[in-house]
């Protein structure tokens, strides 16, 4: 089963234990304005073919980190479900990652408007509130950097494209 993946600030979204998802109208404004920032009315996602690729997607996202973080959280939502509700376009040219293989997997969620932002917020909040098995994955940044280092050494990641923080950690000028 394919998914679309994106980084989120997990502290902004209901966790289903301390904060509950009642309706999209009651979500924190910060969650929407910080995690769902659009450019040209598009929202950036990465496609993975199945759950085994989740970690790779996380590494691909970490490769662009500009500032220090200990962990990041990524969310994976069903590609099929998103395709049925949103305009999706495969846009390899827009893929902002240092991991070469992942550039091809970039998708734009396009023609976003106020209503659709509410709709995608609903999908995300529903997932973060799920207290049993959910598709939120923690990526340890330190471990991811070790993997990125290997990818750079093997020529599978473009060191020029790395985020400032990753360059600093890998001592790349």
């Amino acid at each position, binding site marked *: 089963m394919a998914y679309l993946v994106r980084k989120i600030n*997990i*502290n902004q979204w209901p*966790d*289903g*234990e*301390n*904060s509950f998802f009642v309706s999209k109208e009651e979500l924190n404004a910060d969650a929407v304005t910080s995690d769902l920032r659009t450019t040209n009315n598009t929202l950036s996602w990465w496609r993975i073919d199945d759950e085994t690729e989740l970690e790779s997607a996380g590494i691909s996202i970490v490769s662009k980190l500009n*500032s*220090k*973080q*200990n*962990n990041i*959280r990524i969310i994976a939502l069903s590609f099929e479900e998103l395709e049925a509700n949103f305009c999706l376009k495969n846009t390899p040219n827009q893929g902002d990652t240092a991991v070469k293989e992942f550039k091809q997997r970039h998708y734009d969620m396009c023609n976003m408007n106020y209503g659709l932002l509410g709709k995608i917020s609903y999908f995300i909040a529903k997932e*973060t509130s799920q*207290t049993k098995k959910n598709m*939120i994955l*923690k990526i340890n940044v330190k471990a991811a950097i070790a993997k990125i280092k290997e990818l750079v050494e093997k020529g599978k990641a473009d060191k020029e494209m790395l985020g400032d923080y990753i360059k600093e950690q890998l001592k790349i000028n």
Partner: protein
Amino acid sequence: MIEEIATLSLAVVMPLTGTTVDIKKVEPTPTAIYNDSGKGYEFEGIFLEDKENIYTLMCPFENNSLTTQSDDDKKLLMVFASKLADLTIDFDEDYSYFKFLSELRDDEQKYINFLYGALYNGDLKICNAISIYLSQRSFKFINADEENFVLQLLKNGDLGKQYFSLQTILNWDNISNLNELKSVKIANRYLQEDLEDFISQKES
């Protein structure tokens, strides 16, 4: 005690970068209290004094003060003072300043003390800026006051402050009060998981 607003006009050349920063004014808040020493201003936990070209910086914690005759330090202190005096500053946008500072100096620990002083202004933006700043650095040495400060922020802060203080703690090599950390309950189960992972690592 006489209430007074001071306005200074300075042009400071930032060390290393050569960037000129115009400080239009160093303006204590209206609650500033004129200090008996004649030239100093005490405002909300921060004490800045120009006395025979010596700038003294004092923070709410005992023994946390910085006295310097270094020109570079003085300039930086003045920049800080001007920024902190202007509580309307957008610290989110001004993050680059903290980044600049963090890259500028090896002995930045002492400036952390200054930033702690800003907490006493009670401004959330400043608290967050401090937390963001702290979370970007790895400190080998955390003194008891500083550790306690961040712990209290984690224990008693709202979720926003808990998030930033947790990011700070996750950077620590050591923590003297692991038991207190165990008693913390974060209002987000994902962050709680991060905290518990950290505690497990430190215990193993």
